């Protein structure tokens, strides 16, 4: 997926933090809007401000936060927690692959450098890092620098959205319900590697559409993802 074969060894410098923060600037409005939308949504679903802020601070994973707020347990029970964890893990499984894709670049660095950066990894921060690397950059501190500032934006956006959200009577009028799907489609564009590579995406979308009719909760996401992965594996046999 990612060309990690650049010749330069990864470096790590204080200047890299600043550069990462600078590279993250274009992604900030997206994060702000998305996190504000989460704040609005959490409020609508009856979460308290501190609950929403804690989720954004410690999860920092938009889609799973939306889904968790949607299926929030009231009252919270052990069964509800189990469901939330399974769904969160399901929705966030993509981070597993995003992190895996950084191995070729960051693998030579000590673990204590890499793992904090991974803990703050999101799609925008990841894409920003991939572009930087593709352009010949080698300072891996940008991953942490970018991730950190996006994290701050995420928390601030959540709180702002929650507080302003009570003023928004009808969020659909402002298109807020569509920010998540639109955001993800936009994020999909840079992953485009030709029609053949997109065949699994079609399989995934179709499978998810069918599964959504029969499976409870968010299981259609994992069903669709598996269909896509299997389609990818079958393509491999033909190649």
């Amino acid at each position, binding site marked *: 997926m990612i060309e990690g074969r650049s010749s330069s060894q990864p470096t790590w410098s204080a200047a890299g933090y600043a550069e990462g923060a600078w590279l993250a600037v274009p*992604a900030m409005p*997206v994060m702000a809007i998305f996190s504000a939308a989460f704040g609005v949504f959490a409020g609508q679903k009856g979460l308290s401000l501190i609950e929403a802020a804690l989720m954004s601070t410690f999860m920092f994973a938009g889609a799973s936060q939306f889904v968790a707020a949607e299926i929030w347990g009231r009252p919270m029970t052990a069964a509800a927690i189990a469901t939330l964890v399974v769904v969160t893990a399901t929705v966030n499984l993509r981070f597993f692959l995003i992190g895996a894709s950084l191995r070729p670049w960051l693998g030579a660095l000590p673990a204590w450098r890499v793992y904090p950066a991974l803990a703050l990894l999101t799609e925008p921060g990841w894409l920003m890092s991939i572009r930087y690397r593709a352009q010949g950059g080698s300072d891996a501190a940008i991953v942490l620098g970018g991730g950190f500032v996006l994290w701050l934006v995420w928390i601030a956006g959540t709180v702002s959205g929650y507080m302003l959200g009570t003023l928004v009577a009808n969020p659909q009028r402002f298109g807020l319900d569509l920010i998540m799907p639109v955001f993800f489609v936009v994020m999909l564009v840079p992953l485009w590697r030709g029609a053949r590579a997109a065949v699994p995406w079609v399989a995934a979308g179709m499978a998810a559409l069918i599964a959504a009719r029969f499976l409870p909760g968010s299981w259609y996401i994992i069903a669709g993802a598996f269909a896509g992965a299997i389609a990818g594996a079958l393509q491999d046999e033909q190649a």
Partner: protein
Amino acid sequence: MSRPEPLILLAIAVMAIATVLIRVGGYWLMGRVPLTARVRRMLEALPGSIVAAIVVPIVAKIGPTALLAVIAAAVVMILRRNELLAVAVGVTVAVVARGAGA
């Protein structure tokens, strides 16, 4: 502001731990497991598949407005490679479509 009940804090904590483990897990695993071509192919297909599996049912549920918004955003992203602009256009298209009574 009322303090969250312990079970809610536990729920958030467990979700946070699960998310961190997933974030570091892929990187960790890639340092230990050599990938066969087929597994690599599956992993390469997964990110886009996950996005499609999330988005397609949502778009189908919301209807033509969502489809318009998503297509507009994708077109802008393809042409300009600007996430902010693409999301803004997509959401604006949805707002305009709804204003027009779609």
